[in-house]
């Protein structure tokens, strides 16, 4: 069972019944202590229960009935909060269970010091050990391939069934313990000690064993504890005031008022919001190494996006042959075709396609015979073919002219103009030469991904600056940047310039997010505040990032930012709602408490609740049932739309602030009608 299959299980009946059981287990005061708000409610529940028992013994049937119901609803308040937390945790637990089943005890073939191979349990492998893994075997632990190529089934982790290629050296060398080799044989150097592997971390993260409170959660918890403390004092002072005023207020009513006033709604749902946020990320196949990272994602002001793969399609396509004045276009096309027939890169293939489309060439690689093929390298910056005495080269606008000069040729004056023109259009010019003659330029066009413009615009509306990272020259980069609408770009980027750019943005107070895969991204990833490493990337990149994208999708960062914001918004909305609720509860309970001694206070009973007892009970019931009613919202998260903060604030203030002010008036009134109709308590005013 993979993570994907678990997505829809959150609210299934078995998950619910499991969460109910868990809600009772969490009543243990030692557990409740973690949440001061709900702990106070539990203490209140105990006291009211004892009060009810005392009234039963005294034979005060009417008050017993009232107190018992209050006690029941207070217990339910605690249970509802526990249930919300358990439900959120339950989702994660099922996911962890699925992962754990893949971490079966595997035997590893470890290469001994003398080169001999010995079988050891996978759990005994340590950093630096080398193991051999052949087709059909499970990779025993995390590592880097140092020899060989293999196709690997990573579905246990990513849920993606198509195998992926992993090879020594390069950016695809990392393998994960628990995944299965499907073909070939590889030698792997282990990079994680037992208990620290990717899978181990993933399981413990999901299970919440290492779930630490995020900075905002800590700050909010302090505020909620402070508010709770204030209300405890308010209630403690209310008793002497009532004694002075000659009012008799029972402890049960005081506790009911206390529970209604302290922020139980957010207090009860806070951990569920955090856990479900983590789960939502997991559902999108992102593994955050800490809650802090998710929260930082919501705060990100600048994100660095790789041009290739994120903004444009991975490959550039040949769209035009531009011959030099005294060269026929077909001559240029043929040379380009010949030099590209053995070129397996997408760019090379697109040149072949274009040449065939325009001039119906029929040559195939077989026609080349014993031609010598020069592969493209970072040093030469060109590729080509030596074939039947013809030296055909294609490459950058620096390397190919250099080659032509070396051959004794001269450069046509038109070449530079064409190169600049194509660069300005956002394309990549490929110069083609044969021997000492420049034939022309191929226009390789970047294809912008559909929909990326809109996503970048959405980010800008949310106040996030987008920066395109590219190896292109500044002219080309500028054109693409304008076309897709990024705010800034970093052209001819190197690991050093990336790192410097991030540091500079951070010095100005921005939080920077980026995606990376290669080892040379590691310094930048380590420096960025939110660093998403691709699962397909190197071990170094994965170590440097604070999130891993199991899908290795470069646009995932945008989703992550949204989820980060959503968690904060949900938390803020529930807090505002919770605090705003207090107003109505005051108006329900205060008149009820004191109307006996000051009959005039009935005027403040603006909801016209039937009796003091029904008023107090209705407020307590409302306070309790609002928690389960909001569980779906807590688990799903408040919807985030990428509009400016001012608009979001206005909308959410209307819904959760004003709504929080008004809704309890209606809710308490409705509950009071039901309480009255059912004669649950004394209706004597």
């Amino acid at each position, binding site marked *: 069972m993979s993570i994907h299959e678990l997505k829809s299980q959150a609210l299934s009946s078995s998950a619910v019944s499991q969460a109910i059981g868990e809600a009772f287990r969490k009543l243990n005061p030692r557990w409740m202590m973690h949440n001061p708000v709900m702990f106070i409610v539990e203490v209140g529940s105990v006291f009211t229960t004892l009060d009810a028992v005392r009234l039963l013994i005294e034979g005060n049937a009417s008050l017993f009935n009232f107190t018992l119901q209050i006690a029941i609803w207070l217990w339910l308040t605690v249970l509802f909060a526990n249930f919300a937390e358990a439900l959120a945790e339950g989702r994660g637990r099922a996911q962890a269970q699925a992962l754990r089943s893949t971490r079966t005890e595997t035997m590893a073939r470890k290469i001994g010091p003398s080169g001999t191979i010995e079988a050891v349990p996978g759990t005994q492998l340590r950093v630096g050990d080398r193991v051999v893994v052949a087709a059909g075997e499970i990779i025993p632990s995390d590592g880097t391939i140092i020899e060989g190529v293999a196709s690997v089934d990573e579905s246990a982790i990513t849920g993606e069934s198509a195998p992926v290629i992993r090879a020594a050296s390069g950016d695809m060398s990392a393998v994960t313990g628990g995944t299965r080799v499907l073909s070939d044989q590889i030698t792997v150097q282990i990079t994680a000690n037992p208990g620290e592997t990717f899978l181990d971390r993933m399981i413990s993260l999901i299970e919440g064993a290492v779930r630490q409170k995020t900075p*905002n959660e*800590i*700050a*909010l918890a*302090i*505020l909620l504890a*402070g*508010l709770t*403390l*204030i209300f405890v*004092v*308010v*209630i403690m*002072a*209310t*008793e*002497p*005031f*009532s*004694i*002075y*005023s000659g*009012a008799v207020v029972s402890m049960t009513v005081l506790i009911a008022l206390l529970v209604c006033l302290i922020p139980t709604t957010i207090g009860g749902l806070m951990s569920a919001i955090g856990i479900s946020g983590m789960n939502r990320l997991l559902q999108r196949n992102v593994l955050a190494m800490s809650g802090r990272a998710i*929260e930082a994602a919501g*705060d990100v*002001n600048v994100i660095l996006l790789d041009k290739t793969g994120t903004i444009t399609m991975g490959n550039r396509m040949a769209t035009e042959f531009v011959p030099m004045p005294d060269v026929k276009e077909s001559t240029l096309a043929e040379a380009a075709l010949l030099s590209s027939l053995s070129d397996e890169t997408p760019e090379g293939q697109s040149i072949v396609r274009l040449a065939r489309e325009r001039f119906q060439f029929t040559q195939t690689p077989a026609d080349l015979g014993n031609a010598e093929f020069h592969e493209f390298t970072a040093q030469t910056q060109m590729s080509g073919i030596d074939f039947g005495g013809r030296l055909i080269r294609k490459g950058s606008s620096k390397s190919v002219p250099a080659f032509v000069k070396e051959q004794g040729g001269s450069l046509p004056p038109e070449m530079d103009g064409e190169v600049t023109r194509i660069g300005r259009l956002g394309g990549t010019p490929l110069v083609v030469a044969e021997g000492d003659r420049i034939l022309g330029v191929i226009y390789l066009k970047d294809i912008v991904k559909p929909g990326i413009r809109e996503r970048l615009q959405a980010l800008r*509306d*949310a106040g*996030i600056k987008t920066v395109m990272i590219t190896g292109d020259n500044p002219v080309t980069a500028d054109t693409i940047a304008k076309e897709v609408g990024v705010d800034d770009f970093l052209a001819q980027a190197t690991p050093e310039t990336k790192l410097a750019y991030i540091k500079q943005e951070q*010095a100005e*107070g921005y939080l920077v997010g980026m995606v990376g895969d290669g080892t040379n991204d590691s310094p930048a990833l380590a420096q960025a505040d939110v660093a998403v490493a691709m699962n397909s990337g190197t071990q170094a990149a994965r170590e440097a990032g604070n999130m891993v994208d199991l899908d290795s999708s470069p646009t995932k960062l945008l989703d992550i930012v949204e989820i*980060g*914001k959503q968690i*904060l*918004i949900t*938390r*803020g*909305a529930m*807090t*505002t709602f919770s*605090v705003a609720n*207090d107003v109505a509860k*005051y108006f329900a309970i*205060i*008149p009820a*408490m*004191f109307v006996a001694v*000051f009959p*005039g*206070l*009935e005027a*403040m009973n603006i909801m016209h609740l039937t009796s003091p007892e029904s008023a107090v009970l209705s407020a307590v019931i409302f306070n309790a049932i609002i928690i389960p009613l909001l569980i779906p919202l807590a688990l799903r998260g408040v919807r*985030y739309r990428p509009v400016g*903060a*001012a608009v979001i*604030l*206005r909308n*959410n*203030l209307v819904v959760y*602030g004003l709504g929080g002010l008004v809704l309890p008036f209606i809710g308490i009134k409705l509950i009071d009608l039901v309480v009255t109709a059912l004669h649950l308590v004394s209706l004597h005013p």
Partner: protein
Amino acid sequence: MTVTGVLGILVFAAVLIAIAKPVGLYLYAVYDQRRTFLDPVMRPVERGIYRLAGVREEKEMSWLEYFLAILAFNLVGFIVLYGFLRIQGALPLNPAHFKDVGPHLSFNTAVSFMTNTNWQAYGGESTMSYLSQTMLMVQQFLSPISGLAMILAFIRGLTRRNAHSLGNFWVDLTRTVLWVSLPVSFVGAMVLVALGSPQNWGPYVTAHTLQGARQSIAQGPVGMMNAIMQFGDNGGGFFNMNAGHPYEAPTIASLMVQLILGFSIPVGLTYYFGKVVKDTRQGWTILGAMMAMFLAGALVMYHAEALGNPLLAHLGIHGANMEGKEVRFGPALSSLFETSTTAVSWGSTAAANDSLMPIGGLITLFNMMSGEVIIGAWGVGLLGMLAFAILAVFLAGLMVGRTPEYLGKKIQAYEVKMATLAMIVPTFVILGLSAWAVTSKGGLAGIYNPGPHGLSEVLYAFSSGVGNNGSAFGGLDAAAPFYTWTVGLAMLFGRFAMYIPALAIAGSLVQKQSVPESAGTFPTHGTLFGGLLIATVVIVGALVFFPALALGPLAEHFALWSGHVFGGGA
């Protein structure tokens, strides 16, 4: 309510808004060391003071150093004042031959004037020698400056980035005395004397009334003391009945001048704040929220007072509630003054608050219980409001999907902890001491009116103490040892429970990097944020007192209107 009355209150509010900018700009020039027209006179004096005192002007302080400097300054002020009061009988300038002030009263008074509360458990003209009055006046010059210095330091904390220091307290103190307190109170005193207040050092005059009785008419340096008393939002007037006394506010014009003096620095500070944070909208928003609450309070009180007492109406006496009011001021001006004195926290009164209608009393209580942030005294009012702004930003700020930030500074656990502390302690002290007072023998003995009104009196005393307001509801034996000590403690807690967390927040914020503003930034200006700020003050700051208020003024109000009264009276 009359149209003239309502218009008068609105015009007054407009005047306050109009003076905010010029006052704010002047303060900006003074504290940002720009040129002012007083520089040729004051700058040499300033330099001389630093040389004498050994203050290095450019040396800045960390938040703790700044706090310790304020603390030391206050402590010395307390000890000197306490000493003078205890031996007043042996000192000169005592034409009325007053005896030494007792230890309870001296403690209470010294704390009161040190904390800018000016709670007067004594009657000035019947207890204090001229020398003692002058010593009180010295504190009236100095104590508001502690509050002002606090806000200067706090604003520096908000605006500086990656820094460690919050300014130099001695420089802030000296510049305030030389550029602000002295010149304004000098001119103010001249104006008040011109408007009829006495200013002399002579003995009290004995008059023979038409009935043939002998009456001692108190006088003294009234004009000068009143100017700084109002300007510094001190409130410790020369006479026991403050502005109700014809020598303190001989005419309506004199009263208006005093009102505007009292408001000037607090409203000017909001503009100053906007100016320093380089976004004047921030300052206007804060002032807007303050003015909205102030106007609501003034109009509600005016309405309640103008409506009058229903029980008297049953007896055929119609019209506004004039009990405890000066006939020359009437209900509108009295309501304006009493709302102002509790909102701006100067604490001198022009009417007897004890005799306000219950709703009027409720407004005065609300103004103080909300933390003296509705304009508030020098610095501390704005400081309290900024603490509420931080809470509002934190409560609602998460809703825009970012870590809450105020003016670019991230509001994190430490700031929330301190802001919560600043909110908790005053609530604890007001409720705790009030609860103690209404259940203990000592406390109950001092309550002159039984029933809900008595509870209002007790709540008022401690709210006034904690809010460093200093006005009294009356009806309470404030000079009894129980109240001199408990109110004394309330004043101390109210002052320092605010100072320490506020400076700690400033000390933490000043070290932070500032996040540049963008479309994703939570907007802390405009009516939306103003409304949010008001809601936070009302729900988080004031509503916690709802149970207490229900048993006090609200119970009294509803009882009154249903014809019920609470008998007795001492």
